[in-house]
């Protein structure tokens, strides 16, 4: 009887062994074949309830936050202002033509017949031996008789009147600039009759 029990027990063990092997998981099969298997760490719960690894868990590499490269604002290249080598050239007066006897009637700016030979001579000088792009300032000047405001307006009208005549005679308007100076730029003493006569004038300033 005991003998039968022993044989039965052995058979049971054998069946259990065979069925156990048949239910092996893939890792277990690998293990039996001798392959190196990285098994998941077996966890045990200690008395404090903490999980601790018997097999030290692979220490993950410290999670180093990728340090962003310092955000360096792109520095714009210094704005190099190129030095302007060109100098500002202020045109200089290289010649003057003074028209005498252009004595307009009181409060008038029309060209009288007796003025025409003087103006024509000025036109001839302007046209002769001169570059066509030479700029000419036409200045009107008065003496100090009358108010400053009146003389200013009068000198402007007279300069414009002479300018129009030059244009009629073929001088390009582009090179002419009429300016009225009123009584502001006397060359002689306004207290004398002679001085006042010298101050009443039309001047062409020919620029370089």
């Amino acid at each position: 009887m005991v003998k039968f029990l022993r044989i039965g027990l052995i058979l049971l063990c054998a069946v259990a062994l065979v069925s156990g092997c048949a239910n092996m998981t893939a890792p277990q099969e690998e293990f039996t074949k001798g392959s190196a298997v990285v098994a998941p760490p077996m966890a045990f719960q200690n008395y404090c309830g903490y999980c601790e690894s018997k097999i030290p868990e692979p220490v993950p590499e410290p999670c180093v936050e990728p340090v962003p490269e310092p955000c360096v604002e792109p520095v714009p290249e210094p704005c190099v202002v190129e030095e302007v080598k060109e100098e500002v050239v202020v045109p200089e007066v290289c010649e003057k033509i003074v028209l005498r006897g252009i004595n307009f009637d009181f409060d008038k700016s029309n060209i009288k017949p007796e003025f025409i030979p003087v103006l024509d001579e000025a036109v001839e000088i302007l046209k002769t031996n001169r570059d066509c792009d030479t700029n000419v300032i036409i200045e009107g000047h008065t003496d100090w008789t009358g108010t400053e405001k009146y003389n200013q307006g009068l000198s402007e009208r007279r300069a414009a009147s002479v300018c129009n005549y030059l244009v009629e005679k073929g001088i390009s308007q582009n090179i002419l600039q009429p300016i009225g100076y009123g009584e502001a730029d006397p060359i002689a003493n306004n207290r004398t009759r002679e001085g006042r006569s010298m101050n009443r004038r039309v001047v062409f300033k020919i620029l370089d």
Partner: protein
Amino acid sequence: MLSVVLALTLSGPSTAIADPEKPAAQKSFEHFVNVWMSKLDKIGKMNILGIDIMPRDQGFVGRYVCYGPECKFSIKETGSAETPFVGILCYSEKHFLKKGENRQKTFQNPGMLTKKIRVTEIFRFTHGKWVY
């Protein structure tokens, strides 16, 4: 007496019949020019006396303008009944600069020529006289 160098230029078309008044007009213009240049000389002297002296660059400067005395002149027939002749007078407008350590020395400085501008004045001969 003003030392004026006068150069009378007699010019005109040789084919044109000369205006019988021309010699008289020429003569009168010569006299007129002498008087005119004397006036300009007087203005230049007044400019020197009345020079405006200003502080500049650790010193003082003053500028003034003189005219002539050298000049050239001529007359031209115009064909105009109102103005049979025009007179042309040429001279230089001279710009001077005076410098000095103080106002007194600046005033006494002989002055340096800084700019020379050619001036042409045109006068008209109307009703037998030179008008300006």
